[in-house]
């Protein structure tokens, strides 16, 4: 993995309120992930993998910058980070949405730069 890409994910994972971050290929294959314990988030990650194509379709069709799902115990944000990758972030529901979204946007930009 490119060092800049690894660094971007590491820094995002250290952000307050972020529980996990996963870089997916647009077909739903995880490229890199930062999670505390994969078992505890297994169900949600499975759901995310299944959603990627659907979410990317919406982002492209409706020209969205990101898509956020809010559940009782988590928020899940999908940010396209390049033409072929999506950055998915699992957030604590009490995370500061505006400040964390800036950090996610930063990581997404850094990943794009690292991939290009």
């Amino acid at each position, binding site marked *: 993995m490119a060092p800049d890409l690894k660094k971007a994910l590491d*820094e995002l994972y*250290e*952000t*307050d309120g972020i529980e996990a971050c996963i870089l997916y290929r647009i077909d739903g294959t995880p490229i890199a992930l930062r999670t505390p314990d994969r078992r505890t988030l297994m169900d949600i990650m499975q759901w995310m993998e299944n959603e990627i194509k659907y979410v990317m379709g919406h982002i492209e069709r409706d020209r969205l*910058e*990101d898509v956020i799902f809010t559940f009782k115990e988590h928020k899940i944000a999908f940010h396209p980070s390049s033409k072929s990758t999506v950055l998915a972030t699992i957030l604590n529901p*009490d995370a*500061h949405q*505006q*400040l*964390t*979204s*800036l*950090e*996610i*946007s*930063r990581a997404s*930009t850094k990943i794009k730069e690292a991939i290009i």
Partner: protein
Amino acid sequence: MIFTNSSEDQTLKMKSIVSFSNKRNPKEASKEVIEDIRKRLNFEPDLALFYATQKYNGNYQEILDRFGEEFGDLPQVGASIDGMIYEEDIRTDGMALVLCHDPEARINVKGASVKGALKTADKLADKMSCKEGAIILHFPIVHVPGFRDGFEFYARGAYYSQRCKGKEVEAQKEYADKFSRYCDKNNIFYPAPTILNKFAVKTNYEIPIIGINVLHTQMKVDSPNIFCNFKDIQGGIAALTIEKEDINIIYDDIFSNKGTNIEETRNIVGNEFKVLKEFDAVFEKNVLISLDGKPPVEAVESFVHISKNGEGEIVEKFEKGSFEVWSPYFLIFFDDRSNRIFHVGIRAFYPFELFPFFVDISSFSEKVWLARLRAFTKLSDFISPLYTLEERERFKLFTIDVGSISAFGERTYRLKKEINNLAKENYFGILTAPISAYLPPKYQRRAYMSEIEESTFFSSAGTSSCIEI
């Protein structure tokens, strides 16, 4: 991560080095910063600035102790803030240590933290002396007390709200005055213009004073925090004095110039804001009692949606650090005699009916507008001081209203390129609540709408500054 600001001209400009970490663990974060600084520091520092986001709430002193062991002989100032900006990056999570070197400047940091917000300001102002240069104050505009004091605040608020019900206006004002004094005595509200004026008097109205007003967009109990000489003085006030010739101060706000008289100003405000309703207000000092005879939030609720929280929900949100303070709706007050305005965001902040805030509006008139900003404010307006920089080689310490993030969301991240193009190098920016300023006339570049008292500037949205050293 580290970035060294350097300048070719080594003689006149303040030099700086910025080190940043956002490691979750405060020990690891401070270790990373110290190790980076050790590797890169190539000058004898004269000043340390330390700013951190709320993720380190509860651990600030531990971090300051580690920095104190490493750099303890330096004057140090800082605060808990919502974000920071350094070479082509904007971070809203983490901590930054900035070390500065300027042999031509006389630099010192003094602080005070006693019972009573205004007493704290008096105590610190008494210690001040500054013949030239600038004073940069750090203080909370609202300090959220701990749980025990927080419950007392709610109980007092509920008590005085109850006592006001059905009473004559004069009696209501007496209770509001008592509540205002209680809030001051317990360091809850720091009225920025009043505080700046105390320092302006002590420096014969000759020195520009910037008030870095600290308030998080989502608040926790026992926050925000002020740092002074490697101590977390919590809700105290810290003053950084930089005595040096030719320090340049740039202040601006996002609004048009005010008019030459109050009617003209009202017209301009009417264009900049979408006015939803005019109320007749009753208030005393910094406590709003009623709008058209109703409790303020209840009166406003008829015109805009405001979600209400009970005391239990408010306490829970403060505990989790998810209590939001930004509001798109404002109450606009007019001082007819001196052609000045002040606006304050309104939402259901309190589980009681009185509505206290952080400015004494005694001189303002009773006609109050409920309004929201029109959509044509530009993101770049929030960094306008950077468009008038005089010397790019100097160290630039600037502030941006964190409300820009609330208004523009993650698009704010795009500012980083523009900021880097304008400031080039040797800069550090702070994302926090709108700043306040006392400016001697030569620093007043236009008829700012945010002039709240003579030569004193403050607004609850869109003020910013840049100090070139």
